[in-house]
């Protein structure tokens, strides 16, 4: 019963108000499990893009 309640809460709590699509609990779990990694990789990527843009600007100014 405890597990049933947990599963039910999981499904209910994760559905947006107007969702008509079943996102799938496995799909939610993958997103949650990968969230930290995705955020970190994306932050590094953004930072690297900023550095590249900054270098590019400096280079153009020098020309």
């Amino acid at each position, binding site marked *: 019963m405890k*597990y049933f309640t947990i599963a039910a809460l999981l499904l209910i709590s994760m559905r947006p108000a107007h969702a*008509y699509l079943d996102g799938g*609990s496995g799909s939610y779990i993958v997103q949650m499990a990968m969230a930290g990694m995705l955020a970190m990789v994306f932050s590094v990527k953004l930072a690297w893009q900023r550095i590249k843009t900054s270098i590019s600007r400096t280079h153009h100014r020098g020309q």
Partner: protein
Amino acid sequence: MTIQREPGSFRDPCGFVYTRDGDIYRQVQPSYAANYDLLQQSGLAAALMTDGLLVRSTEADISLAAYPGAYRVLSVDRVPFISYPYEWCFSQLKDAALLTLEIQKRAIEKGMSLRDSSAYNVQFVGAKPVFIDTLSFEAYAEGKPWVAYRQFCQHFLAPLALMAHVDIRLSQMLRIWIDGIPLDLAASLLPRKLMLNPGLLTHIFVHGAAGSKYADDSGAKAKRATETRVSKLAMLGLVDSLETTVRKLSWAPGGTEWGNYYANTNYTDTALKSKQQLVQQMLGTIQPAPKLVWDLGANTGLFSRIASTQRINTVAWDIDPAAVEKNYLQCKSTGEGALLPLTADLTNPAPAIGWNHQERKSMLQRGPANVVFALALVHHLAISNNVPLTGVADYLASAGNWLIIEFVPKSDSQVQRLLASREDIFPCYTQDGFEEAFATRFEIKHSAPVPGTERTLYLMCRR
């Protein structure tokens, strides 16, 4: 007054599409009111429409609602021709995927998120993908995972990965699985070495395994998942990761049977130009001026462009994914707006599929075209596929009102090639037999030999 609800628009309780006296409308239900207001007030809808990413719609008088109780009624611009993902070439599906992700990124910036990511939400106007489901947006609640993540992977990423890494023809799996290719199936078909690709590892292999494992999960892992949130940064990271994975997938059309067709024909340059002129002349005599042309067996669209360059919406159907890919890439590079290349096997054309056989229409249900081109096609249907000439005439009469068709006699080297490895069981395949068979369904308006060949071009009108 005729109101007809679009049969494929039934899943979403927030609204539906219908036609009223032939014009397209979308009824927005009160349950979508808050999201609709946010979509408008945030400026997201206007920005996406201005940039041509979202089909243009304007608010219409509420009295035009299909049923009482509408929150809003939208008048929606018509897409010239509705096509489906299993008819797209690799780059069309890839561009549709990238459009969906671009829209999701822009939606998040404006405090919204896509609540579905079906490939059927995308249509093509020429070579330009356009998102057509105005009600796909919902308020973004930070911390919530993306409800449409699995659907995106099933509709876009899995078929693209299979087409790129296993076989281009696997796009046809989308005809069987209308809600996209199950990820566990895709994972089982993809080479194991692709697990070294971080994007495919996460979004296909791990995602597929998790889908199977937690389909009926009620365990502690599911509980732990509830304790983690997907931050906005992680959500943007997810979309970025999907985009990177999609962008890295590629497929180059090789020298397939039809991809090099024009280099392998028995036409001289003069004969080809004469045939183009004849087609142009015949097309020019058709009244009223055609609005939709289907070029069946279009290859890379050489003859389709006779119509599309006159701004006639033209669908260039071909069986070869390489020819369709080349045609689409050419359309993209030149920005052609009236030509839509699509894949079709005319011996087994797209059927009506989905709920009650009505969710997605068959090829013929999306016709008839005003004019059908059937150039260098009849011998393939009659000899390679054993269709009697009367059967070919029946089919083409269902496909269009006017017909520009080429008869290729047995003496032609292309027909000789088809007969080289099989017995000639086609005594009726003669020019007289062709005219007799087609006379039952069409009136022959004009015919002319194609100079420099043994072929004849006909202009016919359906009886």
